[in-house]
């Protein structure tokens, strides 16, 4: 289990994350939501050790994440950030193979190759496995990176706005895959989302932040209602139920 305890991060005098404590339940999708600048990505970066917290701690299996050895940690927790999109010319297969780096240091064993094949198949990338990632469309590239994370085979998968710049079809595709990771493979997914409706439809739990502070933390159904959403976003958001999904209809809202 990942336990976030009293985490605070300041940039200069401004605290971006302030005294946040959350428990991430195993085998769930937990979405971090909130307005711009709420500190969602910063929080995710601290959980994944990309950033150091000023105060507070993050515990993975009761041990502070800072005390974990980096390769052992990389076998338990993976993070995918937007900035991963670089101009590096690796083929899809090479990229996914690097997901095995914490295990094999680049010298792939037969077992590694098998897991790479499996990840390729899981993300339906076999046909383009020899193409360079800088030549792919946004959706294909995002799938390739997620396949790498799958090959990394960690219990916890952290994703920072994985739907950015994706069209509706690819967004749904990615969310369905994340759902499968949790339901079929027993992973735990933590995801920063901007689209409240994707959070509502696909996540088990929602953690809402605002101005660096924790506003809500609970099962999705307890949070997707007009009352709670007003607290988070300062606007009136009607919620309608469509095919069993709670959909926020905020497009036409008057404050």
């Amino acid at each position: 289990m990942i336990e976030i305890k009293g985490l605070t991060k300041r940039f200069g005098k401004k605290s971006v994350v302030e005294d946040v404590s959350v428990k991430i339940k195993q085998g769930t999708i937990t979405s971090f939501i909130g307005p711009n600048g709420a500190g969602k990505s910063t929080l995710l970066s601290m959980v994944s050790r990309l950033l150091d917290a000023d105060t507070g701690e993050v515990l993975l299996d009761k041990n502070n994440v800072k005390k974990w050895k980096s390769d052992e940690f990389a076998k338990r927790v993976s993070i995918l950030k937007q900035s991963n999109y670089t101009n590096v010319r690796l083929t899809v297969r090479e990229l996914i193979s690097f997901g095995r780096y914490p295990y094999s240091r680049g010298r792939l064993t037969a077992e590694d190759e098998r897991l790479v094949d499996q990840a390729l198949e899981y993300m339906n990338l076999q046909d383009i496995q020899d193409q360079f990632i800088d030549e792919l469309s946004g959706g294909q590239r995002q799938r390739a990176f997620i396949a790498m994370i799958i090959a990394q085979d960690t219990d916890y998968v952290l994703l920072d706005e994985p739907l950015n710049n994706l069209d509706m079809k690819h967004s749904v595709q990615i969310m369905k895959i994340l759902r499968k990771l949790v339901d079929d493979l027993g992973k735990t997914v933590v995801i920063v989302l901007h689209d409240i409706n994707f959070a509502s439809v696909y996540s088990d739990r929602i953690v809402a932040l605002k101005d660096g502070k924790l506003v809500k933390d609970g099962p999705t159904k307890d949070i997707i209602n007009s009352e709670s959403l007003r607290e988070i976003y300062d606007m009136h958001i009607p919620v309608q139920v469509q095919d069993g999904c709670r959909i926020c209809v905020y497009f036409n809202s008057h404050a």
Partner: protein
Amino acid sequence: MRLWMLIIATIVLSFISLFIGAIDIKPSDLLDLGSEETQIFLISRVPRLMAIILAGAGMSIAGLIMQSLSQNKFVSPTTAGTLDAAKLGIMISMLFFTNVTYTQQILFSFSFALIGTLIFMQILDRIKFKDAIFVPLIGIMYGNILSSITTFFGYEADILQNISSWLMGSFTLIIAGRYELLYVSIPALVLAYIYANKFTVAGMGEEFAKNLGLSYKVVLNIGLVLVAIISTSVVLTVGVIPFLGLIVPNIVSLYMGDNLRKTIPHTMFLGIAFLLMCDIIGRIIVHPYEIPVNVTVAVIGSAIFLIMLFRGRAYAK
């Protein structure tokens, strides 16, 4: 392109390189071990070939490592101030010690190359606007600043002539006893190959590398030390060879991608073949005189560089 094609090209060009020059040497002359031809062959031609091979491989790999670590296709020892810093180091060693030894020059040049490149990486870390063209422009300006400091103090101390002789990349003066420093780049090249996977991962960015459990800072520093070792050995023996570290890795990247484990052998052999070709051209066109290799490399290299800029801007992003 296949690796064996590059290797064959390298062997053929090496052979040509051994048997052209002011004095005609035929392979049959070498059968007489005592002949003047054999002496010239061993004192001048073989060292020259070795120097070209080591400098060509070294500068190409140094460029490749820098491009990977800085995540920019247009960064190389000549566009990031590495060579200018090495020159500054040589000048300062001359200022400090009246009878400067070779070892002192090596140490100064190496530490300056290392610190100079580190400073460039720090600048790169701080600027937000990381355009493919903007970054090397900063590097070139930075290199020019270092270079003007060298020129200023060199002029004041009246050792400008001495310094400008380092400037010129040329194999003309390479004879046995004057190029052996280049052999230190061999262990550096071997290390570069051992670290290839780590450089590739680091080249995907700090966060990507940390996600895979790689100690990014350590790999970055190892890469910079390797670049400094290689650059120093080349500057002190051959001089500055422009463009080599820039165009060779880029050409290989175009057809092979950026997985260093795969591209390092190609980059090495393409670098050697390219430098051999430039040197041979420089020795043929004004025979029996020579054009310094930095001139031929600059002319051919800048043409290729321009083509890359116009055609490849989209790819470099």
